[in-house]
Structure formats: structure tokens, C-alpha cells
């Protein structure tokens, strides 16, 4: 008998093993759902698979009046908000992260602020946020930004602060100004880390999006979940949740690919 730690599954069995927990969860769900439906045929908490398929078919059919396919328009609007929120977060993250990480004066001024700000639970100060940023599209985007940007700033500032000082001196001896050091030394080296942080923040970003849409919106994935939640329409909620999870998962994969393509140097094995 070999030690368990030395037993590596082959290629085929890797796939089987990876699928196993999902299959088990599906089975467990079906069993629980069947049980609840046996006790109460109208049970809404654990809808059957066919009920969920029905609900999704309704949601992807064009609406009689507006002609809108709710599911797709929800997805489109949510992704737009998410994209905008993340884009703004990235810009803030890069600008502040670079300033804090590179300029000692900016670091001394802003990094304690960022440490504190990143700990504030945004949901608790919503009234003030809404007062400051209004209640239309902007506010949803702002909630994502407030949730995501401080973490990006801290992470990038840390990364840039860890650049070997030799590199910064070296760049100066090649004639670089502070601006040029930012542009050609700090920024490019921060990018792969940015993507990594972004991957970690995908989950929270979706969470903030859904929260924002639950408070003030008239379309979007989070809005729809909120709307049907009061009727306990899990046959709609569960596919929406699965869809959100899938979107986040795919975004994660895309970011990995992007990083490998755009910053090949960051993915090379060290030799020297």
C-alpha cells in the first residue's frame, strides 16, 4: 500500500472524480425535492428539475407586450453594471495603488485611510451612499466600486511596494522620471497581479451587484431574484443562481487566459 499522498489519479479518473461531487449534489437535491413533493405537491422550496426548465423557458421567451426576453435582458443589464463597476474599480485600483505603492508621501497619506475604508461594511451606510451618488444606475455601480476598489487598491499598492528597490533605482539611472517609472516599470508589473486580485473579487463583485439590484433597480439578475423571492419562486431563483455562478466561473477562466496571453512573462517558470 502506498501512502495516500502518493496516489495520483490518471487523466480519465480526474474527470470522473471532478464530476463526482456535482453528480452527488444533483442526486441529493433530486431526492430531497422528491421527498418534499411527496409531502406537499405544491412545495416551492426545492422545485423539480422540470419546473426549473419550465421557468427558464418562460424567462427566455419573448414577453407578450415588450417582446423582451427577460432572462437575457436581465443578464445584459447586470453584466453592464458589473463591467462598469469593475472597470471603475480597476482604474481606481491602478491609480491609487500605484500612487500609494510608489510615492512614499502618497503612501503615508492614503494607506491608513484605505485600510480603514476597506473594513467599512458598505451595506450599513447605504443611505449615505445613495444620498451621495443618487439612486439611478450610478448607485449600483458605486456599490460594486466601494466593495471592490479598496481591496484592489491595497493589493496593488502592496505588490508595487514590493517591487525590488533595485528596479526603481535602475530605472532612474536610465533616466526615468517618476511618471515614467509608473508607466513603464510599475504599471506593467502590476497588471498580472491586478488580474489575480480581480479573480478573487469576482465573487464579492457579484454579491454587491445583487445587493444593489435588490435595493433599487427595475431590471437585472439580482432584481429578478429579489422580485420573485417574495413568492418563494425557487424554480426561477435556482437557475438564476446557477447562471450567475456560471458567469462568474467563466469570467474567472477568461481572466486566467487573458493573463497568460497578455503577460506571458509573468507565467514563466523562474530559472535563474
Amino acid at each position: 500500500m502506498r501512502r495516500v499522498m502518493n496516489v495520483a489519479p490518471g487523466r480519465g479518473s480526474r474527470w470522473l472524480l471532478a464530476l463526482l461531487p456535482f453528480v452527488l449534489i444533483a442526486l441529493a437535491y433530486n431526492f430531497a425535492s422528491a421527498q418534499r413533493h411527496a409531502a406537499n405537491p405544491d412545495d416551492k422550496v426545492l422545485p423539480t428539475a422540470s419546473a426549473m426548465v419550465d421557468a427558464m423557458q418562460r424567462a427566455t421567451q419573448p414577453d407578450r407586450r415588450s417582446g423582451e426576453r427577460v432572462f437575457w435582458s436581465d443578464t445584459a443589464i447586470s453584466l453592464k453594471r458589473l463591467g462598469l463597476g469593475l472597470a471603475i474599480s480597476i482604474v481606481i485600483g491602478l491609480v491609487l495603488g500605484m500612487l500609494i505603492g510608489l510615492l512614499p508621501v502618497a503612501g503615508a497619506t492614503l494607506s491608513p485611510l484605505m485600510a480603514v475604508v476597506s473594513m467599512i461594511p458598505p451595506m450599513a451606510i447605504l443611505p449615505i451612499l445613495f444620498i451621495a451618488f443618487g439612486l439611478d444606475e450610478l448607485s449600483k455601480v458605486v456599490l460594486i466600486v466601494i466593495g471592490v476598489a479598496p481591496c484592489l487598491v491595497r493589493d496593488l499598492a502592496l505588490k508595487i511596494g514590493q517591487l525590488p528597490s533595485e528596479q526603481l533605482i535602475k530605472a532612474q539611472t536610465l533616466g526615468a522620471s517618476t511618471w515614467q517609472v509608473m508607466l513603464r516599470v510599475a504599471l506593467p508589473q502590476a497588471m498580472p497581479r491586478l488580474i489575480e486580485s480581480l479573480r478573487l473579487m469576482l465573487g464579492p463583485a457579484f454579491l454587491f451587484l445583487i445587493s444593489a439590484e435588490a435595493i433599487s433597480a427595475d431590471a437585472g439578475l439580482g432584481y429578478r431574484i429579489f422580485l420573485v423571492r417574495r413568492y418563494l419562486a425557487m424554480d426561477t431563483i435556482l437557475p438564476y443562481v446557477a447562471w450567475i455562478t456560471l458567469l462568474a466561473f467563466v469570467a474567472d477562466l477568461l481572466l486566467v487566459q487573458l493573463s497568460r496571453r497578455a503577460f506571458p512573462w509573468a507565467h514563466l517558470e523562474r530559472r535563474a
Partner: protein
Amino acid sequence: QAQPKKEFDIAWSIYVGWMPWPYAEQAGIVKKWADKYGIKIKITQINDYVESINQYTAGKFDGVTVTNMDALTIPAAGGVDTTALIVGDYSNGNDGIVLKQGKTLADIKGQKVNLVELSVSHYLLARALSTIGLGEKDIKTVNTSDADIVSAYQAKDTTSVVTWNPQLATIKAMPGAALVFDSSKIPGEIIDTLSVNTQTLQDNPALGKALVGIWYETLALLQDPGPKGVAARTAMAKLSGASLESFESQLKTTRMFYTPAETVAFVNDAKLQKTMDLVRTFSFDHGLLGADAATKDFVGIGFASGATLGNPKNVKLRFDPSYLALAAAGKL
């Protein structure tokens, strides 16, 4: 400062009695009346009811759909002089207490009750308890968000809930659920209004006229048994995420004032003063009038007759049927 504004923002949240507002917007009724008075009215949906009132209180909106109690405890207690411009309906079974175990209200004694604390549900509970000689000390309240109360009811350890429609209907439909008390037992006490900033209204009577105009034109559709009415109700149901059937059953437990005359009569009725006294007593007892309120008289409430409850120098919530009267007289 009294310079007339041209553009106004009204916030609404999903509730059966308020669904005419988004429908009016969708159907062009809002634009029609706004154009008539040369103003612009924007109707904004806020999913989180409390947040919509908070934002109104903070000055982000000129008007908001709100219950009588919340109008008193949030904007009025917060110093924002507010006029209940349109009293649209009162809850006549739309709010209720549901027990998992037990058949009568008395069985609630000693139970844990899930509800949105300090809301009209809480008020309903307090009123219900008082009818059988119990007090809040006889039960234990657990604050539960309205959006999650249906699923909270599913939890094993939940025994009773107080909530409103459509959640109430969903819960009632579950096996074993017993509705032991509802708002039809205290008719006229849980009132749904469109309230607007008093100052804004004074400076811009056009706003009041337009809103009242929109309201009764839409209500006529809501009541209409013909195909136009069905179309309107279907649209409202959809806007609230419900089926037509569910929406219509919610309407049944809502006492809508379909005509201006009915509304005026309700607002002028002296019973309203009694109701508001109950409400403010409840609010004061639960600290809702704020830390500065030494007595329940701290915030004054003005009525149509000119009478006031509480401090007449600090009237912050007004029931003003004058615009309704214009509508009743067909002068819009």
C-alpha cells in the same frame, strides 16, 4: 426659495396599493397629466421600501409611497414636513398573523414571532395582542426582512409570522398555516398614502394637481371590469412580479378608495384622528419618534378639520384633502 420647480421625483416600491403608479408611468398617464400642468414627473422604483422613505427624507425625492405609520416615524419625526397627499387605500386583510401551530390568536402566547420589527406588521401585532389582553412581553419578536420572510417561515424553528401581501398569501397557501388575525379586524388603521414634501407642494400646487389627476385616472382603469381594465391589472401584476390571479386576490383584501369623494370622506372622518393617536402611541412606545421626543406629542399631526394631535408648533405630518376635493369637484 419659493421659485417653482419644473421637475419632480416620486419614489415607489412594490405593494398592491401602489402598483397604479408604475402602470400610470408605463401607460403614459403620468406624462399626460404632467404635460397638462407643464411639469415633468419621474417615477422611480426602489425595491427596498425603507430605503425609499429614507431617500425621500434625505431630500432625494419630492414624494414617496408610504404608510401612515412610516410617514410619521421617518420623515415627520425627522423634521421633514410631509403631506399625505393621496390616501389611496387601507389594508383590509392585506396584513396578517399566521401560526404554524395553533388555530387561534391566543395560541401565540410564548411563541417567537418573525416579523419586520417597527413596521406596520409590528403595529398589527401589538393591536392584535391588545384585543386578547396580551402584551408584547408575552411573545418574543424576531426581526426578519420582508423579502426573506417566506423562506424564514419554512425554517423548522419558525412558529409564527406577521407579514403583508404578497408574502402573506404565499405563506397562507402552505399546508398547516393558520391565519389567526388580519388587518380587516382593525379596518382603516393601516393606511397607504402617497406623501409629498409639504414645502414643495405649497410652492408647486401643479404637482399636487397632476399627481391626483394621474391617480384617479389610473384607478378608474384598475376598477374597470372590461378588457382595458384587465390589461391594466395584468400589467400591474407583472410589474409586481405576480400573476394576474394573485394580484386580483391581493386587491380584494385592499380597500381602495376608487373615487375622490370616498377618499375625502375617509380623510375628513374623525376616526382618522383616533387611528393616528393609536399609531403615534405605538411609535412613541417603541422609540420611533427619536431621542428628542420626550412625549408622544413631540411631532404634531395636522388634520383636514384644522385640528392637530400633539405639538401644534411642530406639525410635520398633514392630512390635506384639498387636492382630492379639487378632483372630487372635477376641477383638475
